[in-house]
């Protein structure tokens, strides 16, 4: 009986550790995806709003964010644990990195500029 209980207990522990890991990994992926989508939405919003518009954005989680032009490719997090997303092509004219949790996007003469606030 003791042997059976030990086996069952070990099985439960293995399952718990495995599931906890899966949920933690996906939770982290989800948080990075939220940041990625927030940045993409803000840049898209600044672009569609036109010249001299301003969009303020506060990022809900603190991750490194890199934006690559002209593809509109956004990468959140550090290698190798990154999450990426894309916005419509051609919205930005350069590549940049930032780690601030609060940024300001200014559309001036068709360019989207990201400033630290």
């Amino acid at each position, binding site marked *: 009986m003791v042997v059976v209980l030990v086996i069952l207990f070990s099985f439960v522990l293995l399952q718990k550790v495995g599931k906890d890991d899966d949920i933690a*990994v996906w939770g982290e992926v989800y948080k990075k995806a939220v940041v990625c*989508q927030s940045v993409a939405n803000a840049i898209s*919003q600044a672009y569609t709003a036109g010249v001299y518009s301003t969009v303020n954005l506060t990022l809900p989680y603190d991750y490194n964010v890199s934006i690559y032009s002209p593809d509109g490719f956004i990468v959140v997090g550090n290698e190798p644990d990154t*999450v990426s997303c894309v916005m419509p092509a051609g919205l930005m004219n350069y590549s940049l990195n930032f780690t601030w949790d609060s940024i300001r996007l200014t559309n001036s003469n068709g360019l989207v500029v990201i400033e630290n606030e």
Partner: protein
Amino acid sequence: MNKGQLLTMDYVIGIAIFLFVFTICLYVWDNALYKVQQDYLTLELLNTARRASDQLVRTTGNPSSWEGNVSSLSSIGLAVSDRILSQQKFDALAGLNYSSLRYHLGAGSYNIYLKISNASGSVFGEAGVRPAEALVVNIRNIVTLDNNTALLDVSVWSPEAGSVLTPTS
């Protein structure tokens, strides 16, 4: 009932309760994981559709007359002015190959389908790949096309819905 029988009965009941609770725990864990995956997918599809839709109905594209020279296209847009669309631009968009269409609309690895029609269902144009059995997010905009009210549907969809997703990290 002697002592041996009582012990066996306690043992069986104990194991049964344990298995019952453990099955519930497994269900809760799997459900939490599935929900996170579905939330992630919905977040991506919804935001992708919103961005593509906004850009199409609110911007002319760059250059503004890109429909005359598609090779010069930098960023795509269908508008002549806010929510007033050009049939020529839509026809030029429909002529793009599918990978180019996805690139310009920022669909990433997801599929995209566009349809412009009127309220009675007459279709003026379609582009992209029609959604198959999948998780589909559709954004509908009321626009003006050639002085008539029309509906622009932007659908972004993933065939992965319902299956176990692989993290992109």
